[in-house]
Protein backbone atom coordinates (compact mmCIF):
# COMPACT_ATOMS: atom_id res chain seq x y z
CA UNK A 1 0.00 0.00 0.00
CA UNK A 2 1.24 3.48 -0.81
CA UNK A 3 2.13 5.94 1.91
CA UNK A 4 -1.01 7.98 1.13
CA UNK A 5 -3.07 4.81 1.35
CA UNK A 6 -1.61 3.95 4.75
CA UNK A 7 -2.28 7.47 6.02
CA UNK A 8 -5.88 7.24 4.76
CA UNK A 9 -6.43 3.87 6.45
CA UNK A 10 -4.97 5.18 9.71
CA UNK A 11 -7.21 8.25 9.52
CA UNK A 12 -10.29 6.10 8.87
CA UNK A 13 -9.43 3.80 11.78
CA UNK A 14 -9.00 6.77 14.08
CA UNK A 15 -12.33 8.26 13.01
CA UNK A 16 -14.11 4.93 13.56
CA UNK A 17 -12.48 4.53 16.99
CA UNK A 18 -13.45 8.05 18.00
CA UNK A 19 -17.01 7.51 16.86
CA UNK A 20 -17.30 4.35 18.98
CA UNK A 21 -15.65 6.12 21.93
CA UNK A 22 -18.07 9.05 21.68
CA UNK A 23 -20.99 6.65 21.76
CA UNK A 24 -19.56 4.75 24.77
CA UNK A 25 -18.94 8.01 26.64
CA UNK A 26 -22.51 9.11 25.89
CA UNK A 27 -23.82 5.74 27.14
CA UNK A 28 -21.71 5.55 30.31
CA UNK A 29 -22.43 9.16 31.24
CA UNK A 30 -26.04 8.08 31.62
CA UNK A 31 -25.40 4.63 33.02
CA UNK A 32 -22.67 5.43 35.58
CA UNK A 33 -22.15 9.18 35.90
CA UNK A 34 -19.29 10.48 37.99
CA UNK A 35 -19.36 13.44 40.31
CA UNK A 36 -16.29 15.59 40.52
CA UNK A 37 -15.40 17.21 43.82
CA UNK A 38 -13.05 19.34 41.80
CA UNK A 39 -12.94 22.31 44.12
CA UNK A 40 -11.16 20.10 46.65
CA UNK A 41 -8.31 19.87 44.19
CA UNK A 42 -7.92 23.57 43.71
CA UNK A 43 -7.65 24.65 47.29
CA UNK A 44 -4.98 23.90 49.77
CA UNK A 45 -5.20 23.94 53.51
CA UNK A 46 -1.53 24.74 53.65
CA UNK A 47 0.03 28.10 53.04
CA UNK A 48 3.54 26.78 52.70
CA UNK A 49 4.05 26.46 48.98
CA UNK A 50 3.25 28.50 45.93
CA UNK A 51 -0.29 28.21 44.62
CA UNK A 52 -1.43 28.28 41.02
CA UNK A 53 -4.48 29.69 39.32
CA UNK A 54 -5.14 28.55 35.77
CA UNK A 55 -8.12 30.46 34.46
CA UNK A 56 -9.22 29.17 31.04
CA UNK A 57 -11.92 31.22 29.29
CA UNK A 58 -13.43 30.32 25.89
CA UNK A 59 -13.41 33.28 23.51
CA UNK A 60 -16.77 34.47 22.22
CA UNK A 61 -15.35 35.25 18.80
CA UNK A 62 -12.84 32.53 17.96
CA UNK A 63 -11.69 34.01 14.68
CA UNK A 64 -8.45 35.98 14.41
CA UNK A 65 -10.61 39.11 14.66
CA UNK A 66 -11.89 38.03 18.06
CA UNK A 67 -8.39 37.05 19.17
CA UNK A 68 -7.06 40.44 18.08
CA UNK A 69 -9.73 42.10 20.23
CA UNK A 70 -8.54 40.07 23.23
CA UNK A 71 -4.91 41.05 22.60
CA UNK A 72 -5.86 44.71 22.32
CA UNK A 73 -8.00 44.50 25.44
CA UNK A 74 -5.06 43.24 27.53
CA UNK A 75 -2.72 45.79 25.96
CA UNK A 76 -5.12 48.64 26.68
CA UNK A 77 -5.26 47.67 30.35
CA UNK A 78 -1.62 46.76 30.91
CA UNK A 79 -0.88 49.64 33.33
CA UNK A 80 -3.84 48.77 35.49
CA UNK A 81 -2.91 45.07 35.41
CA UNK A 82 0.74 45.56 36.34
CA UNK A 83 -0.01 48.12 39.03
CA UNK A 84 -2.71 45.87 40.43
CA UNK A 85 -0.45 42.81 40.43
CA UNK A 86 2.23 44.82 42.23
CA UNK A 87 -0.30 46.02 44.76
CA UNK A 88 -1.65 42.56 45.50
CA UNK A 89 1.90 41.75 46.57
CA UNK A 90 1.54 37.98 46.76
CA UNK A 91 1.80 37.29 43.01
CA UNK A 92 5.02 35.71 41.75
CA UNK A 93 4.07 35.61 38.10
CA UNK A 94 1.04 36.21 35.93
CA UNK A 95 0.63 35.35 32.27
CA UNK A 96 -2.16 36.30 29.90
CA UNK A 97 -2.10 33.81 27.04
CA UNK A 98 -4.16 33.02 23.98
CA UNK A 99 -4.12 29.23 23.59
CA UNK A 100 -6.21 28.04 20.68
CA UNK A 101 -9.68 29.44 21.20
CA UNK A 102 -9.13 30.28 24.86
CA UNK A 103 -7.98 33.33 26.76
CA UNK A 104 -5.94 32.10 29.72
CA UNK A 105 -4.70 33.75 32.89
CA UNK A 106 -2.01 31.58 34.45
CA UNK A 107 -0.67 32.85 37.74
CA UNK A 108 1.47 31.71 40.65
CA UNK A 109 0.79 33.26 44.03
CA UNK A 110 1.01 32.75 47.78
CA UNK A 111 -1.99 32.39 50.06
CA UNK A 112 -5.64 31.51 49.93
CA UNK A 113 -7.37 31.06 46.60
CA UNK A 114 -10.59 32.93 47.30
CA UNK A 115 -8.80 35.81 48.99
CA UNK A 116 -6.61 35.99 45.90
CA UNK A 117 -9.56 36.23 43.50
CA UNK A 118 -11.21 38.87 45.67
CA UNK A 119 -7.92 40.82 45.65
CA UNK A 120 -8.05 40.67 41.86
CA UNK A 121 -11.56 42.10 41.88
CA UNK A 122 -10.66 44.93 44.20
CA UNK A 123 -7.43 46.00 42.45
CA UNK A 124 -8.38 45.60 38.80
CA UNK A 125 -12.02 44.65 38.67
CA UNK A 126 -12.54 46.94 35.70
CA UNK A 127 -9.98 44.95 33.67
CA UNK A 128 -11.93 41.80 34.40
CA UNK A 129 -15.07 43.57 33.28
CA UNK A 130 -13.34 44.31 29.97
CA UNK A 131 -11.96 40.79 29.74
CA UNK A 132 -15.20 38.95 30.30
CA UNK A 133 -16.81 40.92 27.50
CA UNK A 134 -14.72 38.94 25.03
CA UNK A 135 -15.42 35.49 26.52
CA UNK A 136 -18.22 33.16 25.54
CA UNK A 137 -19.99 32.65 28.84
CA UNK A 138 -19.38 35.74 30.99
CA UNK A 139 -20.55 36.08 34.57
CA UNK A 140 -22.68 39.09 35.54
CA UNK A 141 -20.71 42.33 35.63
CA UNK A 142 -19.43 44.63 37.01
CA UNK A 143 -17.65 41.95 38.99
CA UNK A 144 -17.17 44.23 42.01
CA UNK A 145 -20.95 44.19 42.48
CA UNK A 146 -21.23 40.43 41.80
CA UNK A 147 -18.19 39.17 43.61
CA UNK A 148 -19.72 35.86 44.79
CA UNK A 149 -20.87 35.00 41.27
CA UNK A 150 -17.48 36.00 39.93
CA UNK A 151 -15.62 33.77 42.40
CA UNK A 152 -17.84 30.85 41.40
CA UNK A 153 -17.34 31.58 37.71
CA UNK A 154 -13.57 31.60 38.16
CA UNK A 155 -13.81 28.28 39.99
CA UNK A 156 -15.81 26.79 37.13
CA UNK A 157 -13.24 27.95 34.59
CA UNK A 158 -10.16 26.90 36.43
CA UNK A 159 -7.98 24.04 35.27
CA UNK A 160 -8.08 21.87 38.34
CA UNK A 161 -5.43 19.32 39.17
CA UNK A 162 -6.25 15.69 38.55
CA UNK A 163 -4.54 13.76 41.35
CA UNK A 164 -1.91 11.23 40.32
CA UNK A 165 -3.60 8.50 42.31
CA UNK A 166 -7.17 8.39 40.97
CA UNK A 167 -8.54 6.85 44.16
CA UNK A 168 -8.27 10.36 45.63
CA UNK A 169 -10.54 11.74 42.93
CA UNK A 170 -13.03 8.88 43.06
CA UNK A 171 -13.05 7.62 46.65
CA UNK A 172 -16.48 6.03 46.16
CA UNK A 173 -15.42 3.85 43.22
CA UNK A 174 -15.49 0.26 44.44
CA UNK A 175 -13.98 -1.33 41.35
CA UNK A 176 -10.45 -0.20 40.51
CA UNK A 177 -10.91 -1.42 36.94
CA UNK A 178 -13.51 1.32 36.50
CA UNK A 179 -11.15 4.15 37.50
CA UNK A 180 -10.03 4.72 33.92
CA UNK A 181 -13.67 5.03 32.81
CA UNK A 182 -14.36 7.46 35.66
CA UNK A 183 -11.47 9.56 34.42
CA UNK A 184 -12.78 9.47 30.85
CA UNK A 185 -16.23 10.63 32.00
CA UNK A 186 -14.69 13.35 34.13
CA UNK A 187 -12.68 14.65 31.18
CA UNK A 188 -15.80 14.55 29.00
CA UNK A 189 -17.43 17.08 31.31
CA UNK A 190 -14.36 19.11 32.34
CA UNK A 191 -12.37 20.54 29.47
CA UNK A 192 -9.98 22.47 31.74
CA UNK A 193 -7.69 20.27 33.77
CA UNK A 194 -4.14 20.33 35.00
CA UNK A 195 -2.37 17.00 34.64
CA UNK A 196 0.87 17.88 36.37
CA UNK A 197 1.62 20.38 39.05
CA UNK A 198 4.67 21.15 41.08
CA UNK A 199 4.44 23.68 43.86
CA UNK A 200 7.79 25.15 44.78
CA UNK A 201 8.76 26.78 47.99
CA UNK A 202 7.28 30.23 48.47
CA UNK A 203 9.68 32.74 47.03
CA UNK A 204 9.85 36.30 48.24
CA UNK A 205 6.77 38.12 47.11
CA UNK A 206 6.59 41.81 46.40
CA UNK A 207 4.84 42.36 49.69
CA UNK A 208 7.55 40.59 51.67
CA UNK A 209 10.34 42.51 49.96
CA UNK A 210 8.57 45.77 50.69
CA UNK A 211 8.13 44.80 54.30
CA UNK A 212 11.73 43.68 54.76
CA UNK A 213 13.46 46.46 52.88
CA UNK A 214 11.13 49.36 53.36
CA UNK A 215 11.47 50.00 49.64
CA UNK A 216 8.35 50.97 47.78
CA UNK A 217 7.91 50.59 44.08
Amino acid at each position, binding site marked *: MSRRGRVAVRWLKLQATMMVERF*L*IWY*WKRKAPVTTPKWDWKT*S*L*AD*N*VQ*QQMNLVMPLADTTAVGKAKAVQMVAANIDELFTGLNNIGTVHSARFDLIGEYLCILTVYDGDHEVYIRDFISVFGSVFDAMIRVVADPPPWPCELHSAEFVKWVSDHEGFQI*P*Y*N*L*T*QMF*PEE*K*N*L*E*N*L*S*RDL*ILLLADNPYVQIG*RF*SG*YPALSTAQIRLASGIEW
Partner: protein
Amino acid sequence: MTLGTDGDLSKRLFDALVADYPDHKVGTRPVHTVGIGARGRFTPSNAARMYCVAEQFAGPSVPVSIRFSNGSGSPVEHDDALDVRGLAAKFHLASGNEADLIMITLPVFFAKDPDEFLGFAEAGRPKFDPLPGFWQRLMDKLRLRPDPTRPDPKNPMDGSAGVLRYANRHASARPGTVSALLLVTPTSYARATYHALHSFKMTSPEGIVRFVRLSWEPVAGVRPLDPTATVPEDYLHQELPERLNREPARFVLRMDVAGQGDEVNDPTQIWDTTRLRVVLGELVVTEVVADQTHGCEKLSFNPTRVAPGLECSDDPILIARGKAYEYSCTLRGGSGCPAGGEWR
Protein backbone atom coordinates in the same frame (compact mmCIF):
# COMPACT_ATOMS: atom_id res chain seq x y z
CA MET B 1 -10.21 -11.76 62.75
CA THR B 2 -8.78 -11.31 66.22
CA LEU B 3 -5.08 -11.02 66.67
CA GLY B 4 -3.24 -12.76 69.43
CA THR B 5 -0.16 -11.73 71.35
CA ASP B 6 2.59 -9.60 69.82
CA GLY B 7 4.76 -12.66 69.25
CA ASP B 8 1.89 -14.52 67.67
CA LEU B 9 1.13 -11.56 65.44
CA SER B 10 4.75 -11.22 64.32
CA LYS B 11 4.84 -14.89 63.39
CA ARG B 12 1.57 -14.62 61.50
CA LEU B 13 2.75 -11.56 59.59
CA PHE B 14 6.01 -13.31 58.76
CA ASP B 15 4.24 -16.51 57.69
CA ALA B 16 1.72 -14.55 55.60
CA LEU B 17 4.53 -12.90 53.66
CA VAL B 18 6.49 -16.10 53.19
CA ALA B 19 3.37 -17.85 51.87
CA ASP B 20 3.24 -15.31 49.02
CA TYR B 21 6.59 -16.63 47.72
CA PRO B 22 6.52 -20.42 47.28
CA ASP B 23 10.26 -20.54 46.50
CA HIS B 24 11.17 -18.61 49.64
CA LYS B 25 14.42 -19.88 51.13
CA VAL B 26 14.57 -20.49 54.87
CA GLY B 27 17.09 -18.23 56.57
CA THR B 28 16.51 -15.28 54.24
CA ARG B 29 14.32 -12.21 54.53
CA PRO B 30 10.59 -12.90 53.91
CA VAL B 31 10.43 -9.98 51.48
CA HIS B 32 13.12 -7.77 49.96
CA THR B 33 15.15 -10.95 49.89
CA VAL B 34 17.60 -9.96 47.19
CA GLY B 35 19.66 -6.93 48.11
CA ILE B 36 23.04 -5.28 47.86
CA GLY B 37 24.87 -3.59 50.71
CA ALA B 38 26.67 -0.29 50.45
CA ARG B 39 28.04 2.38 52.70
CA GLY B 40 28.16 6.15 52.74
CA ARG B 41 27.71 9.22 54.91
CA PHE B 42 24.75 11.38 55.83
CA THR B 43 25.25 15.11 56.31
CA PRO B 44 22.31 16.97 57.85
CA SER B 45 21.17 20.31 56.48
CA ASN B 46 21.17 23.43 58.64
CA ALA B 47 17.38 23.38 58.54
CA ALA B 48 17.29 19.84 59.98
CA ARG B 49 18.62 21.08 63.32
CA MET B 50 15.82 23.65 63.50
CA TYR B 51 13.18 20.95 63.13
CA CYS B 52 14.59 17.92 64.89
CA VAL B 53 16.74 17.14 67.91
CA ALA B 54 17.51 13.56 66.81
CA GLU B 55 21.21 12.79 66.91
CA GLN B 56 21.61 12.09 63.20
CA PHE B 57 20.60 15.70 62.49
CA ALA B 58 23.00 17.27 65.00
CA GLY B 59 25.89 17.14 62.52
CA PRO B 60 28.43 17.28 61.18
CA SER B 61 27.96 13.88 59.42
CA VAL B 62 27.48 10.23 60.31
CA PRO B 63 28.47 6.98 58.58
CA VAL B 64 25.56 5.03 57.15
CA SER B 65 25.11 1.39 56.13
CA ILE B 66 22.73 1.01 53.21
CA ARG B 67 20.89 -1.92 51.68
CA PHE B 68 19.18 -1.57 48.33
CA SER B 69 16.74 -4.34 47.53
CA ASN B 70 13.98 -5.73 45.31
CA GLY B 71 10.62 -6.19 47.00
CA SER B 72 10.09 -9.84 46.13
CA GLY B 73 10.50 -12.58 48.73
CA SER B 74 11.90 -14.95 46.09
CA PRO B 75 15.62 -15.70 46.37
CA VAL B 76 15.87 -15.62 42.57
CA GLU B 77 16.98 -12.25 41.31
CA HIS B 78 14.74 -10.55 38.74
CA ASP B 79 15.97 -6.96 38.66
CA ASP B 80 14.01 -6.40 35.45
CA ALA B 81 10.68 -7.33 37.08
CA LEU B 82 8.14 -4.63 37.84
CA ASP B 83 8.66 -4.63 41.58
CA VAL B 84 8.93 -2.38 44.59
CA ARG B 85 12.53 -1.38 45.46
CA GLY B 86 13.85 -0.67 48.91
CA LEU B 87 16.47 1.55 50.48
CA ALA B 88 17.22 0.72 54.11
CA ALA B 89 19.67 3.01 55.90
CA LYS B 90 21.35 2.52 59.25
CA PHE B 91 22.85 5.65 60.80
CA HIS B 92 25.87 4.85 63.00
CA LEU B 93 25.68 7.68 65.51
CA ALA B 94 28.57 9.22 67.43
CA SER B 95 26.99 8.12 70.72
CA GLY B 96 27.40 4.50 69.65
CA ASN B 97 23.66 4.10 69.00
CA GLU B 98 22.12 3.23 65.68
CA ALA B 99 18.98 4.55 64.00
CA ASP B 100 17.30 3.07 60.94
CA LEU B 101 15.19 4.46 58.12
CA ILE B 102 13.49 1.98 55.80
CA MET B 103 11.94 3.23 52.61
CA ILE B 104 10.41 1.75 49.48
CA THR B 105 9.39 3.09 46.10
CA LEU B 106 5.67 3.01 46.98
CA PRO B 107 4.34 6.24 48.50
CA VAL B 108 1.45 4.58 50.38
CA PHE B 109 0.77 1.18 51.88
CA PHE B 110 -1.95 -1.41 51.24
CA ALA B 111 -3.34 -1.83 54.75
CA LYS B 112 -4.02 0.41 57.70
CA ASP B 113 -3.71 -2.23 60.42
CA PRO B 114 -2.25 -5.75 60.83
CA ASP B 115 -5.64 -7.42 60.40
CA GLU B 116 -6.03 -5.84 56.99
CA PHE B 117 -2.46 -6.66 56.11
CA LEU B 118 -3.00 -10.35 56.80
CA GLY B 119 -6.05 -10.28 54.52
CA PHE B 120 -4.10 -8.45 51.85
CA ALA B 121 -1.17 -10.87 52.01
CA GLU B 122 -3.57 -13.82 51.74
CA ALA B 123 -5.20 -12.25 48.69
CA GLY B 124 -1.77 -11.91 47.10
CA ARG B 125 -0.98 -15.63 47.12
CA PRO B 126 0.27 -16.53 43.65
CA LYS B 127 -2.33 -18.11 41.44
CA PHE B 128 -2.52 -18.78 37.77
CA ASP B 129 -4.99 -16.27 36.37
CA PRO B 130 -5.38 -16.80 32.65
CA LEU B 131 -5.67 -13.78 30.42
CA PRO B 132 -9.30 -12.87 29.74
CA GLY B 133 -10.65 -14.34 26.52
CA PHE B 134 -11.81 -12.42 23.45
CA TRP B 135 -15.37 -11.77 24.70
CA GLN B 136 -14.19 -10.62 28.11
CA ARG B 137 -11.67 -8.27 26.49
CA LEU B 138 -14.41 -6.94 24.21
CA MET B 139 -16.69 -6.36 27.20
CA ASP B 140 -13.88 -4.55 28.97
CA LYS B 141 -13.41 -2.29 25.94
CA LEU B 142 -17.13 -1.52 25.92
CA ARG B 143 -16.91 -0.74 29.62
CA LEU B 144 -14.05 1.70 28.87
CA ARG B 145 -11.72 -0.37 31.03
CA PRO B 146 -7.99 -0.66 30.39
CA ASP B 147 -6.44 -3.64 28.68
CA PRO B 148 -5.52 -6.38 31.16
CA THR B 149 -1.90 -6.54 32.22
CA ARG B 150 -0.15 -9.48 30.62
CA PRO B 151 1.49 -11.79 33.15
CA ASP B 152 5.26 -11.78 33.35
CA PRO B 153 6.33 -14.78 31.19
CA LYS B 154 9.09 -15.53 33.71
CA ASN B 155 6.59 -15.53 36.54
CA PRO B 156 3.13 -16.50 35.23
CA MET B 157 1.88 -17.26 38.73
CA ASP B 158 1.40 -14.06 40.62
CA GLY B 159 -1.01 -12.54 43.09
CA SER B 160 -1.91 -9.37 41.23
CA ALA B 161 -5.43 -10.50 40.24
CA GLY B 162 -6.15 -11.53 43.83
CA VAL B 163 -4.83 -8.21 45.10
CA LEU B 164 -7.07 -6.34 42.68
CA ARG B 165 -10.12 -8.30 43.84
CA TYR B 166 -9.15 -7.64 47.47
CA ALA B 167 -8.71 -3.90 46.82
CA ASN B 168 -12.14 -3.76 45.20
CA ARG B 169 -13.58 -5.02 48.48
CA HIS B 170 -11.38 -2.95 50.83
CA ALA B 171 -11.21 0.82 50.35
CA SER B 172 -7.99 1.29 52.29
CA ALA B 173 -6.11 -1.06 49.95
CA ARG B 174 -7.06 0.94 46.85
CA PRO B 175 -4.56 3.85 46.93
CA GLY B 176 -1.63 1.48 47.46
CA THR B 177 -2.84 -0.89 44.75
CA VAL B 178 -3.19 1.95 42.25
CA SER B 179 0.27 3.22 43.24
CA ALA B 180 1.67 -0.27 42.65
CA LEU B 181 0.15 -0.23 39.15
CA LEU B 182 2.05 2.99 38.48
CA LEU B 183 5.43 1.56 39.55
CA VAL B 184 8.29 1.72 37.09
CA THR B 185 11.49 -0.29 36.92
CA PRO B 186 14.44 2.02 37.63
CA THR B 187 17.64 2.11 35.57
CA SER B 188 19.56 2.11 38.85
CA TYR B 189 18.93 1.80 42.56
CA ALA B 190 20.34 5.33 42.63
CA ARG B 191 17.70 6.65 40.19
CA ALA B 192 14.51 6.01 42.20
CA THR B 193 12.66 7.90 44.92
CA TYR B 194 12.01 6.00 48.14
CA HIS B 195 9.32 6.74 50.75
CA ALA B 196 9.14 5.80 54.44
CA LEU B 197 5.33 5.16 54.19
CA HIS B 198 4.65 5.96 57.86
CA SER B 199 4.48 9.22 59.73
CA PHE B 200 7.10 9.92 62.36
CA LYS B 201 6.87 12.29 65.30
CA MET B 202 9.58 14.92 65.06
CA THR B 203 10.51 17.18 67.98
CA SER B 204 12.29 20.51 67.50
CA PRO B 205 14.73 22.13 69.98
CA GLU B 206 11.82 24.33 71.17
CA GLY B 207 9.77 21.23 71.90
CA ILE B 208 7.43 21.71 68.93
CA VAL B 209 6.11 18.32 67.78
CA ARG B 210 5.41 17.79 64.08
CA PHE B 211 4.29 14.69 62.25
CA VAL B 212 6.33 14.12 59.12
CA ARG B 213 6.77 11.71 56.25
CA LEU B 214 10.25 11.13 54.89
CA SER B 215 11.56 10.37 51.41
CA TRP B 216 14.96 9.85 49.75
CA GLU B 217 15.09 11.73 46.45
CA PRO B 218 17.96 10.92 44.06
CA VAL B 219 20.03 14.00 43.22
CA ALA B 220 20.66 12.49 39.77
CA GLY B 221 16.89 12.33 39.26
CA VAL B 222 14.46 9.47 38.74
CA ARG B 223 15.02 7.47 35.56
CA PRO B 224 12.84 4.51 34.60
CA LEU B 225 14.06 1.71 32.39
CA ASP B 226 12.84 1.70 28.82
CA PRO B 227 10.09 -0.99 28.97
CA THR B 228 11.23 -2.40 25.63
CA ALA B 229 14.87 -2.68 26.71
CA THR B 230 16.40 -6.10 27.31
CA VAL B 231 18.64 -6.10 30.36
CA PRO B 232 20.41 -8.81 32.39
CA GLU B 233 18.34 -10.13 35.28
CA ASP B 234 20.88 -8.76 37.74
CA TYR B 235 21.48 -5.46 36.00
CA LEU B 236 20.77 -3.40 39.13
CA HIS B 237 23.42 -5.37 41.02
CA GLN B 238 25.88 -4.90 38.19
CA GLU B 239 25.13 -1.22 37.76
CA LEU B 240 25.54 -0.05 41.36
CA PRO B 241 29.24 -0.91 41.87
CA GLU B 242 30.05 0.41 38.38
CA ARG B 243 28.27 3.67 39.21
CA LEU B 244 29.95 4.02 42.60
CA ASN B 245 33.36 3.36 41.07
CA ARG B 246 32.76 6.36 38.83
CA GLU B 247 31.15 8.70 41.36
CA PRO B 248 29.10 8.61 44.56
CA ALA B 249 25.32 8.30 44.41
CA ARG B 250 23.54 11.09 46.25
CA PHE B 251 20.11 11.23 47.83
CA VAL B 252 18.39 14.14 49.52
CA LEU B 253 16.34 13.36 52.62
CA ARG B 254 13.10 15.29 52.27
CA MET B 255 10.30 15.56 54.75
CA ASP B 256 6.69 16.56 54.23
CA VAL B 257 5.15 18.07 57.33
CA ALA B 258 1.57 17.04 58.10
CA GLY B 259 -0.99 19.77 57.77
CA GLN B 260 -4.49 20.25 59.03
CA GLY B 261 -6.63 17.21 58.26
CA ASP B 262 -3.77 14.85 57.36
CA GLU B 263 -4.15 11.39 58.83
CA VAL B 264 -0.87 10.63 60.61
CA ASN B 265 -1.54 7.08 61.81
CA ASP B 266 -2.78 5.60 58.55
CA PRO B 267 -0.15 4.69 55.92
CA THR B 268 -2.83 4.15 53.25
CA GLN B 269 -3.72 7.85 53.18
CA ILE B 270 -2.19 10.14 50.58
CA TRP B 271 -1.21 13.59 51.78
CA ASP B 272 -1.76 16.79 49.85
CA THR B 273 1.23 17.66 47.68
CA THR B 274 1.26 21.25 48.90
CA ARG B 275 2.56 20.51 52.37
CA LEU B 276 5.60 22.24 53.83
CA ARG B 277 8.68 20.47 52.50
CA VAL B 278 12.05 20.62 54.19
CA VAL B 279 15.34 19.10 53.09
CA LEU B 280 16.92 17.39 56.08
CA GLY B 281 20.25 16.44 54.58
CA GLU B 282 22.15 14.49 51.98
CA LEU B 283 23.15 10.84 51.85
CA VAL B 284 26.27 10.16 49.80
CA VAL B 285 26.62 6.49 48.90
CA THR B 286 30.29 5.86 48.20
CA GLU B 287 30.93 2.13 47.84
CA VAL B 288 29.46 -1.33 47.76
CA VAL B 289 30.56 -3.29 50.83
CA ALA B 290 33.03 -6.09 50.13
CA ASP B 291 31.52 -8.50 52.67
CA GLN B 292 27.94 -8.85 51.43
CA THR B 293 27.15 -11.52 54.03
CA HIS B 294 27.78 -9.42 57.12
CA GLY B 295 27.53 -6.02 55.49
CA CYS B 296 24.18 -6.78 53.85
CA GLU B 297 22.45 -10.12 54.31
CA LYS B 298 23.07 -10.53 58.04
CA LEU B 299 22.68 -6.82 58.70
CA SER B 300 19.15 -6.17 59.86
CA PHE B 301 17.11 -3.00 59.89
CA ASN B 302 13.99 -2.07 61.80
CA PRO B 303 11.58 0.75 60.91
CA THR B 304 10.93 1.43 64.60
CA ARG B 305 14.58 1.76 65.51
CA VAL B 306 14.59 5.53 65.72
CA ALA B 307 16.48 8.10 67.75
CA PRO B 308 14.84 10.33 70.37
CA GLY B 309 13.51 13.37 68.57
CA LEU B 310 12.35 11.35 65.56
CA GLU B 311 9.97 8.83 67.01
CA CYS B 312 7.32 6.42 65.81
CA SER B 313 3.75 7.60 65.36
CA ASP B 314 0.92 5.41 66.63
CA ASP B 315 0.53 3.86 63.17
CA PRO B 316 -0.46 0.25 63.96
CA ILE B 317 1.29 -1.05 60.85
CA LEU B 318 4.55 0.62 61.88
CA ILE B 319 4.36 -0.84 65.37
CA ALA B 320 3.54 -4.32 64.02
CA ARG B 321 6.34 -4.07 61.46
CA GLY B 322 8.83 -3.29 64.22
CA LYS B 323 8.06 -6.52 66.04
CA ALA B 324 7.80 -8.60 62.86
CA TYR B 325 11.24 -7.39 61.71
CA GLU B 326 12.66 -8.36 65.08
CA TYR B 327 11.09 -11.82 64.76
CA SER B 328 12.40 -12.26 61.21
CA CYS B 329 15.87 -11.09 62.26
CA THR B 330 15.99 -13.68 65.04
CA LEU B 331 14.93 -16.47 62.67
CA ARG B 332 17.70 -15.78 60.21
CA GLY B 333 20.39 -14.86 62.73
CA GLY B 334 20.58 -11.25 61.67
CA SER B 335 22.25 -8.45 63.58
CA GLY B 336 21.29 -4.98 64.71
CA CYS B 337 17.52 -5.26 64.63
CA PRO B 338 15.97 -4.61 68.05
CA ALA B 339 12.87 -2.48 67.72
CA GLY B 340 13.71 0.85 69.28
CA GLY B 341 17.26 -0.29 70.13
CA GLU B 342 18.44 0.79 73.53
CA TRP B 343 16.11 3.79 73.42
CA ARG B 344 13.09 1.53 73.69
